[in-house]
């Protein structure tokens, strides 16, 4: 139903998540969760038993799916598959690293934010000189 409706209607897309249980629960409560006809979810709950392989597969699946616009990924999960996240360079879907409850957010690990910081500091130095 949902899958078929989305093909003609390109203007609506999903947000997918790879995160710990609490974060996913919170966002599911907000209503981003989706289950398609094959009972596939648009989120992956990562706990201590989840293997890196499973995360990799989920990441690859979410980034190649047509109807997903944004992939939210907990930063500590992103660190597990850092090489995949760093090598990903397509604009859509956008990969967003989010902080999780148990792990403090470290902006130096974020692939995009490190670049932003680098450019931003260079720019602020330049503008300060003016």
């Amino acid at each position, binding site marked *: 139903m949902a899958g078929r409706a989305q093909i003609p209607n390109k203007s609506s897309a999903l947000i997918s998540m790879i995160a710990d249980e609490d974060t996913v629960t919170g966002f599911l409560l907000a209503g981003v969760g989706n289950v398609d006809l094959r009972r596939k979810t648009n989120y992956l709950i990562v706990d201590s038993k989840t293997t890196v392989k499973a995360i990799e597969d989920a990441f690859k699946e979410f980034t190649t799916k047509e109807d997903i616009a944004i992939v939210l990924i907990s930063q500590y999960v992103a660190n597990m598959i850092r090489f995949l996240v760093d090598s990903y360079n397509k604009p859509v879907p956008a990969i967003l690293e989010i902080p999780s409850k148990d792990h403090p957010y470290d902006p130096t690990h974020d692939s995009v934010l490190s670049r*932003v910081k680098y450019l931003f500091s260079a720019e602020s130095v330049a503008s300060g000189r003016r």
Partner: protein
Amino acid sequence: MSGQSQRLTVVPTVTMLGMMKARLVGATRGHALLKKKSDALTVQFRLILKKIVSTKESMGDVMKTASFALTEAKYVAGENIKHVVLENVQNASLKVRSRQENIAGVRLPKFEYFTDGETKNALTGLARGGQQVQLCRAANVKAIEVLVELASLQTSFLTLDDAIKTTNRRVNALENVVKPRLENTISYIKAELDELEREDFFRLKKIQGYKKRAIEKQRETAKQFAEEQVAEKVSLQKGISINAAHSMLSAASEKDEDIIF
């Protein structure tokens, strides 16, 4: 530099010179336009950069609020609320719409979220803690709002970065490769044309010289012929041989020359 000696392989003609000049004009205009585009993109890029930094900072706060709200909800409604939520997932009620924004010919994707249909979690926590659950829901929707904004900023950032790189590469290619090459070609053609002109001038001079010499020769022969005639006349009048007349004439002319001395 290796770029200095490069030029296009062309036949040095006036037509080609006109063509090259036209191409140089085109390249200059294209360079100016691309430079403008690059500047416009850079301005936009800086704006987005600033926004990203501030949004990332606010994301931390919003996420904190969201997870704290979830903890509250869990405390009031019991730990098993997450099972209820996980079981209730069917179709997404909160979706993302993407549209494109055009900045100096670069299409930037912009995301915005919208709610589609009512939420399935309306009855979650009906037994107890319903209000906390709804608060938690609101907090998470807010978090999604910030995250969606951040995602569109980030996507724009990546796209713009790419576009700026491409544009700058084009600007530099035009400035450092195409334009010098055209200029070199133009100067080559000009030099070649000048050379041809000099050669032509030299040839004309030479021909003039030949002509002058030919005219002089003709005059000489005419003079000789006239002298011959005079000698003949003299010989006929005085009844002497032509040779004697010649020597008489030459003697007379020599004497005349002596008189001058």
